[in-house]
């Protein structure tokens, strides 16, 4: 998969990464368009600008490896393989959704593709990721678990407890901090008493990697190193992947707290077209190859949205189901 001298992944992997990035980007564009149109009101945290990170991580994972992600994690889900149809049906709150419409955007779950939990609570992906990794350690099933979280989540207690425990127990887990420079409206520096989140790895005697999360090759190398280490019994790694969110915290965010120039610069350096161009320039793919990938995604996304909006709503009796393994009596 990776050239042993350059460390560069082979062509198939390079293209696979692009395909994931393209899927995420286009999916996000559709989501925002749909929201704008008013056809689907939902709470939506755009991951646009952060496509590279999970794409580079996921090409190093097997389908049955686990991820734990957060409210912003549509990119993490798609990169890991959560199918568009079930995802969109869930976003639309339909019975055909991943979670029968009961979880919604902040709680997408799809164990078949390894997406074990999406949490809406800052920091809570990490302790639970430890548990999945712990099960793998006990069973010896060789799986790796990735916990995604944001920069601001590195200030909450769960981060500290989880990283300490993962290190003490040498769990096969990778902590991937997507540092997009903001937690809601608060700048990273204003809330965080350390310059680099990755430096906090030292508190847990854990390797810490600081990487440009918008650079596909660098991100791939970082992810590969960490995932290989976890898989080979070397324990956890903290990766801080630097990136930027293009569309603020949540859909509708007025951006008043952001520096316009900083934002424009980040958007001008959009990692998806940049990587696309690089693939062509390097001769890894032709414009036509990539165009076909993009077009394929376009068709699938549109179709998923159309199907979702046509799908049946869940029945009200669902309120009494899945609370426990046995249905509740409706008292």
């Amino acid at each position, binding site marked *: 998969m990776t050239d042993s001298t350059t460390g560069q992944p082979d062509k198939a992997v390079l293209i696979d990464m692009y395909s994931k990035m393209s899927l995420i980007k286009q999916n996000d564009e559709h989501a925002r368009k749909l929201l704008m149109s008013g056809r689907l009101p939902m*709470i939506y945290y755009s991951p646009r600008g952060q496509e590279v990170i999970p794409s580079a991580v996921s090409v190093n994972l097997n389908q049955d490896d686990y991820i734990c992600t957060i409210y912003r994690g549509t990119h993490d889900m798609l990169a890991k393989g959560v199918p568009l149809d079930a995802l969109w049906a869930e976003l639309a709150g339909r019975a055909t959704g991943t979670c029968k419409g009961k979880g919604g955007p902040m709680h997408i779950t799809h164990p078949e593709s390894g997406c074990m939990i999406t949490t809406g609570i800052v920091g809570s992906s990490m302790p639970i990721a430890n548990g999945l990794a712990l099960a793998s350690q006990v069973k010896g099933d060789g799986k790796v678990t990735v916990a995604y979280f944001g920069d601001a989540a590195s200030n909450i207690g769960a981060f500290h407890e989880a990283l300490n425990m993962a290190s003490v127990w040498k769990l096969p887990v990778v902590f991937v901090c997507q540092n997009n420079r903001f937690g809601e409206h608060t700048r990273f520096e204003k*809330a965080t008493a350390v310059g680099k989140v990755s430096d906090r790895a030292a508190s847990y005697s854990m390797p810490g990697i600081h990487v440009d999360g918008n650079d596909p090759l660098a991100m791939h190398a970082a992810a590969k190193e960490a995932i290989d280490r976890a898989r080979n019994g070397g324990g956890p790694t903290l990766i801080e992947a630097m990136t930027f969110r293009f569309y603020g915290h949540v859909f509708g965010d007025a951006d008043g707290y952001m520096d316009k120039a900083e934002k424009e610069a980040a958007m001008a350096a959009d990692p998806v077209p940049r990587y696309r161009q690089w693939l062509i320039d390097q001769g890894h793919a032709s414009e036509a190859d990539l165009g076909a990938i993009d077009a394929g995604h376009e068709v699938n996304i549109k179709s998923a949205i159309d199907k979702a909006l046509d799908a049946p709503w869940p029945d009200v009796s*669902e309120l009494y189901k899945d609370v426990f393994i046995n249905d509740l009596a409706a008292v």
Partner: protein
Amino acid sequence: MSKQITTLQAINEAMHHAMAADPTVMLFGEDVADPEEGGVNGASKGLSTKFGDLRVRSTPISEQAIIGAAIGAAMAGMRPVAEIMLMNFMTVAMDMITNHAAKLRFMSGGQTAVPLTIRCTTGAGFGTAGQHSDFLEAWFAHTAGLKVVTGASPAEVSGLLNSCIFDDDPCIFIENLPAYWQKGDAPTDPGARIPLGVARIARPGDDVTVITYGPQVAVAQAAAETMAAEGVGVQVIDLRTIVPWDRETVLNAVAKTGRAVVTHEAVKAFGVGAEISSVIHEELFSDLKAAVQRVGAPSCAVPYSNPLEKAFVPDADKVLAAIRKTLN
């Protein structure tokens, strides 16, 4: 007609008034300062600009540290208002709130006091689902040492928030997210206080008493309208303060009507309604013409899907059904 303002404006003006009136009032929470837009919903807009960065601070995402800082500051003579963005995030700080804020006065034999107010918001209606919409007032009500307060209109929210800020005990002040943008009469004065522990008769009525608080007051009033058309007088009591709750007003009212319904948006089972219902039965057993009925959400997480979310939140129909049950 008096000036109309939103609940967010009411909160904002009350905070401005309190901070101007008393230099010990502080505010901290995630994004609350002006560089962060005065809160994700703008509730605290203008405060940091006016009262400075020392007294108004945006915090890291660290709910334990936020509440801990509020407790310590309160013990040292400040009157901090700590904002926990959503009520579900109180779960992260439950040790600070229940083992410390609630207990320090008692455990110190009265030597230390914790006059802090924790503002939080919650409520279904916006599809934020299982981890962003819970009403957890029953937990706090069961925890000795906390006052638990919620308002049902902009003026009520303002008057009750003012009382919490200047109360000498820790107050959990629960706001309702969908109500933030609803308008109502402005308070006569942004510093006006509505005393804690005193319920409000939101609507008079002679036949059945509905006891509720927060967003369910409007639901109960809608149900009362319907019953009025059928010739049944439904009295609506807005508790305002869940702890300490106004037993006298409630028991006097139900002693007259002989029929009562308690409703809240929180899960019905083991909810606040159970305490109110039990006390009414205990105190008025022979006066009651029917068992007190309770209305609340079913025992599940708040669901995402719109029809499920609608079915989850008690509506006027459910309150009506409960009222009718007391009439049979």
